[in-house]
């Protein structure tokens, strides 16, 4: 897979708030019954992480499991591990009702970090990013400008933003433009 290129190939806009496309990143959609013991066991066994609570995520710094809907998780992991992970998940869940799909290439993933990152994100999404409301460990699916996006906040205060690959340039442009425009001065 030496030919593989992510949507924006690591494009970065550096400044007080830095926006960076994170390059090839493994992402797997997992659908199933969270209450089902077998499903939960398979997730924990293969990720080392628990199924997160509603709108939360679990991470060990390498793998991250995000709550996307009542029956859907997004697993983020190194790109090179995806195929093995999908195979292992299929093996672990064989015979039960579930769906696992590699969506690594269907998405673009960004890091947004810096002093007023919350305000930059608040310019394009109807989401309360104020620090006491949007705490580390939280996930929020919403939109960025006119397209769908998911946001989550890491312990260091930086955010991850995921969107569809085809609109990566639009999303990068919108967030980078909002960063360049400067802080609002309320958070």
């Amino acid at each position, binding site marked *: 897979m030496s030919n593989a290129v992510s949507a924006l190939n690591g494009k970065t806009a550096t400044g007080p708030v830095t926006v960076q496309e994170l390059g090839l990143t493994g992402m797997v959609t997992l659908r199933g019954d969270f209450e089902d013991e077998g499903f939960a066991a398979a997730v924990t066994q293969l990720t080392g992480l628990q199924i997160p609570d509603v*709108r939360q995520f679990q991470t060990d710094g390498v793998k991250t499991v995000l709550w996307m*809907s*009542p029956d859907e998780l997004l697993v983020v992991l190194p790109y090179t591990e995806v195929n093995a992970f999908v195979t292992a998940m299929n093996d672990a869940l064989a015979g039960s009702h579930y769906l696992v799909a590699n969506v690594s290439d269907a998405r673009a993933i960004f890091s947004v970090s810096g002093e007023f990152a919350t305000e930059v994100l608040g310019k394009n999404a109807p989401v309360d990013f104020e620090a006491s409301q949007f705490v580390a460990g939280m996930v929020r*699916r919403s939109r960025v400008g006119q397209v769908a996006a998911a946001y989550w906040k890491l312990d260091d205060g930086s955010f991850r933003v995921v969107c569809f690959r085809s609109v990566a340039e639009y999303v990068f442009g919108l967030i980078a433009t909002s960063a360049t425009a400067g802080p609002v001065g309320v958070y």
Partner: protein
Amino acid sequence: MLLLQCPYCGVNAEETELAAGGEAHLKRATVGDSDEAFEGYLFMRENKKGVHLERWRHAYGCGKWFLAARDTATLEVFGTYPAQTTEPPADVTENIRAKYPDWSWKETA
């Protein structure tokens, strides 16, 4: 701009994150049903000034469909509830009756 709480993920979503889906609790008519029954299913819709039960999808969120009881005139929201119900739940009905004591849903009226 409306604000509705998605009963699945708890998000207070604004209208731009939602997609409206028309009247709730429709019963599908199909092969074997009369023309009248099929017409009712396909075309006849409530268009009330007042309490309305309607479908919404948390389209820019968890993707789930949910139902809402809303006053189309005052925009008061009496409750939102999962789509996997065949009639408005008791707590929602209670909220509606607190405002409109005589209200009853057309299917149970």
